[in-house]
C-alpha cells in the first residue's frame, strides 16, 4: 500500500518536478515572486518616497545610483553617501546638475520617510532606505515633476502587475464557463456560442480596446478606470479561452465518469464545474500564464496613450508615456526604465508559461536530458 502511494505521483506533483528542472521557468518564477513581493506586500516599505511626493526643483534629476560615493575626499572608504543635487541652466537653457559638496548625506537603512501603513495596517514612517532631508535619494532618477522614478515604478507595479491577474481571472472565468457550456451541450448551443466567440476574436483587439475605451466616459476616478480596464480587456480576452476549453470539454465529456455523474442525477452545472472543467485546468494554468503579459501590455498601451491610469497614479504604462518624445529620451534616458520592468515581467511570464506547458505535457520525455541544457 505504502509503495503504491509512493509510486503514483499526482499529475501536479509530477509537473512540479519537471518544472523545477526547467531553469528559465524557475528563473522567471523567482523574478516574478520578487516583483510581486516588492510591489504588493512591501511596496510602501521599499519605495523611499510616496508616489506623489514631488521635489519641485528636482525635475529630471539623474539617477542617484550612479552618484553614490563610497570614498571620502581623502580617498578612504566610508559608508555610502550622496551629495545634494541642484541644477542650473546653461546658455541653451539645458539643465546642468551640480553637487553640493559641503555636506554628505549618508544612505540610511530603515530611514524615516513618508508616512505609510506597513502591510496595510501598521502605521509607520520607516522605509527600507533613504537619506536625510533636504537631500533626496532618487535611485532611478526623477520624472518631469521631480518625483522618484523608483518609487513610482514600485507603486506602478501594483497596477501593472495586478491588472494582468485581475483581467485573466475575469476573462478565464467567463471563458471557462462559456467554453464548458458550449462543449458540454454541443449542437446548436455550441454553434451559436462559437460564432459569437469568432466575432469577438475577429475584431483587431487593439482597435476594439480603443473603441471600448472611447465609448466610456473620459472623466473617471482612478479606481473606476482600473476596473474599466479590467472589464475591457477581459471582454476581448475570453473568446480565445472559450474556444480552447470547448475543444477540451468535447473530449472530456465522453469520459465514463461524466456519464456516471449524470447517471447519479447530478445537475448539468455541477457536472460542468466539478467533473469537466477541472480536467482542463492544467491547460488553463499554462494558458493563463502565457496570456497575462497580454493584459500587462494592454494596460501599458492604453495608459501610454493617456487612456488608462491617470497621473498622479502610476502604472508602468503611464510612466512610459513621458518617453514618447525622443527629445526626452535623449536628455533623460532613465525614463525608459519602466519599460525594462514590463519587459522583465512579460519575459518571466512567458518563460514560466513555457516551462509549465512542458511540465504539464504528458508526452514530453525531456525530463533531465533536454531541460538541463536550456
Amino acid at each position, binding site marked *: 500500500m505504502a509503495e*503504491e*502511494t509512493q509510486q*503514483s505521483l*499526482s499529475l501536479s506533483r509530477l509537473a512540479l518536478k519537471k518544472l523545477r528542472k526547467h531553469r528559465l521557468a524557475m528563473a522567471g518564477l523567482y523574478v516574478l515572486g520578487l516583483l510581486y513581493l516588492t510591489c504588493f506586500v512591501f511596496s510602501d516599505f521599499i519605495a523611499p518616497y510616496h508616489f506623489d511626493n514631488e521635489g519641485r526643483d528636482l525635475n529630471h534629476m539623474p539617477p542617484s545610483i550612479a552618484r553614490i560615493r563610497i570614498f571620502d575626499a581623502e580617498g578612504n572608504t566610508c559608508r555610502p553617501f550622496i551629495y545634494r543635487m541642484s541644477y542650473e541652466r546653461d546658455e541653451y537653457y539645458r539643465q546642468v546638475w551640480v553637487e553640493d559638496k559641503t555636506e554628505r548625506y549618508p544612505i540610511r537603512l530603515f530611514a524615516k520617510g513618508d508616512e505609510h501603513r506597513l502591510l496595510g495596517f501598521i502605521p509607520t514612517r520607516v522605509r527600507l532606505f533613504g537619506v536625510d532631508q533636504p537631500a533626496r535619494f532618487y535611485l532611478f532618477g526623477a520624472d518631469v515633476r521631480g518625483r522618484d522614478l523608483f518609487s513610482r515604478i514600485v507603486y506602478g507595479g501594483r497596477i501593472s502587475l495586478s491588472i494582468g491577474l485581475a483581467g485573466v481571472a475575469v476573462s478565464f472565468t467567463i471563458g471557462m464557463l462559456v467554453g464548458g457550456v458550449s462543449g458540454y451541450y*454541443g*449542437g446548436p448551443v455550441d454553434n451559436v456560442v462559437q460564432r459569437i466567440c469568432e466575432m469577438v476574436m475577429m475584431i483587431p483587439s487593439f482597435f476594439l480596446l480603443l473603441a471600448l475605451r472611447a465609448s466610456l466616459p473620459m472623466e473617471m476616478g482612478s479606481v473606476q478606470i482600473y476596473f474599466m480596464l479590467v472589464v475591457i480587456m477581459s471582454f476581448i480576452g475570453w473568446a480565445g479561452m472559450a474556444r480552447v476549453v470547448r475543444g477540451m470539454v468535447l473530449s472530456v465529456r465522453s*469520459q*465514463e*465518469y461524466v*456519464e*456516471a*455523474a*449524470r*447517471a*447519479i*442525477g*447530478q*445537475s448539468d452545472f455541477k457536472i460542468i464545474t*466539478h*467533473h469537466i472543467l*477541472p*480536467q482542463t485546468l492544467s491547460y488553463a494554468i499554462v494558458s493563463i500564464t502565457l496570456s497575462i503579459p497580454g493584459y500587462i501590455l494592454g494596460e501599458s498601451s492604453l495608459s501610454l496613450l493617456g487612456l488608462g491610469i491617470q497621473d498622479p497614479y502610476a502604472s508602468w504604462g503611464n510612466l512610459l508615456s513621458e518617453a514618447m518624445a525622443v527629445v526626452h529620451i535623449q536628455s533623460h534616458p532613465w525614463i525608459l526604465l519602466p519599460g525594462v520592468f514590463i519587459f522583465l515581467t512579460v519575459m518571466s511570464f512567458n518563460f514560466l508559461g513555457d516551462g509549465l506547458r512542458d511540465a504539464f505535457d504528458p508526452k514530453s520525455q525531456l525530463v533531465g536530458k533536454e531541460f538541463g541544457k536550456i
Partner: protein
Amino acid sequence: MAKSDACNKPPLLEISDLHTYFFLEGGPSKAVEGLDLAVPRGKTVGLVGESGCGKSATSLSIMRLIPSPPGKIVRGRIVFDGVDLLSLPPDDMRRVRGREIAMIFQEPMSSLNPVFTVGYQIVEMIRNHEAVAKKEAWARAVDLLRRVRIPAPEQRADEYPHQLSGGMRQRVMIAMALACSPKLLIADEPTTALDVTIQAQIMELFEEIRQGTDMSVLLVTHNLGIVAQTADEVAVMYAGHIVEQAATRPLFASPLHPYTQGLLESIPKTTSTAERLHVISGNVPDPSHKPPGCPFNPRCPKATDRCRSEMPPTVELQPGHIVRCWEASAGRSGN
C-alpha cells in the same frame, strides 16, 4: 412461484415498444426497435446479447441518458413504479437518476473521477439527493464501503481511484449505486473489465446485497455464465429486439430461438472433444442496414423464405416463455 408474484403486483419497470434511434449521416441507426421488457420487483433480470445488439442503448434509454444528438427515443413507453419516465420533465428525471434507478458502468477504471477521493464521490451522490450534513454523509459513505466489503473503509474513503484496484473500484461503484437505496439497479456489464476471480466475488456481493433489500436488478451482460448464476429471468436481445425471454432455468434447459441455441452452444465446454469451438456464422447486422424480415435470418441455420421477408411476432409459447421466431412457433404449434 416467480410467476404468481409478478401477476399480483405490476412489475417495477415496464418497457413497451421502445424505439431508440441514432440519427447518423448514413441514415438512422436503429439501436433499439420495438423492445418490450419487464423487470419484476425484487428480481434480477438478465439482458443478454452480443456487442452492438442494443443492450447498452436500452439501459441508457431507461436512464434517459442517450447522447442527444444524435440519439433519440423515437417511440415507446418506459413505466417505472407507475411513472412514465419518458414524459417526466428533466428536473424530475434528474431526481430519479441515482435515487430511484442507479446504474453501474462497465469500466470501473474510468467511471470514477480521477481527481476526487472515492469517499467524496459517494458523499456527492448522497448529498445530491438528500439534505444531509457533510459529516453524516461521510459516515454513511464509510458504512457503504464497509457493506461492499472494502477493508479499512475509513482509510479507503480518503483515497483516490488510482490507488484502488479494479475490483475495489467496482465495489466503490456499487457502494455509490446503493447509497440512496434505489429500487432498480441497472448493471451494465459490471464485471467485464475484471478478471475472473474478482468477477465471481463481485457477483457474490451483488447477490448478497440484493437479498438484503427488495431491489430489482437489470443485469446487462454478454456473459451467459453470470446470468445463469444470478438472474431470475433472462431476456435475449438481438439487433434491437428481444428474441427470447423466459425464466433462467427453462431458457438454459430448452432454448427455443435459434440464436439462443447458438449462443448456448458457443459456450466452451471442458467435456467437449471438438477441435474448434462452435460459432454463429456472420456478424450482428449494421443497425442502420438491417436485413428485411427477421434480423437474424442471414445467420440462422433454419431460416426460411418467410423469415427473409416478414418480421416474426412475439409469441408466448409456454407460460412465461416468450419467443420471436417463425420456426420455433411453427414447430410448437405443430406439436
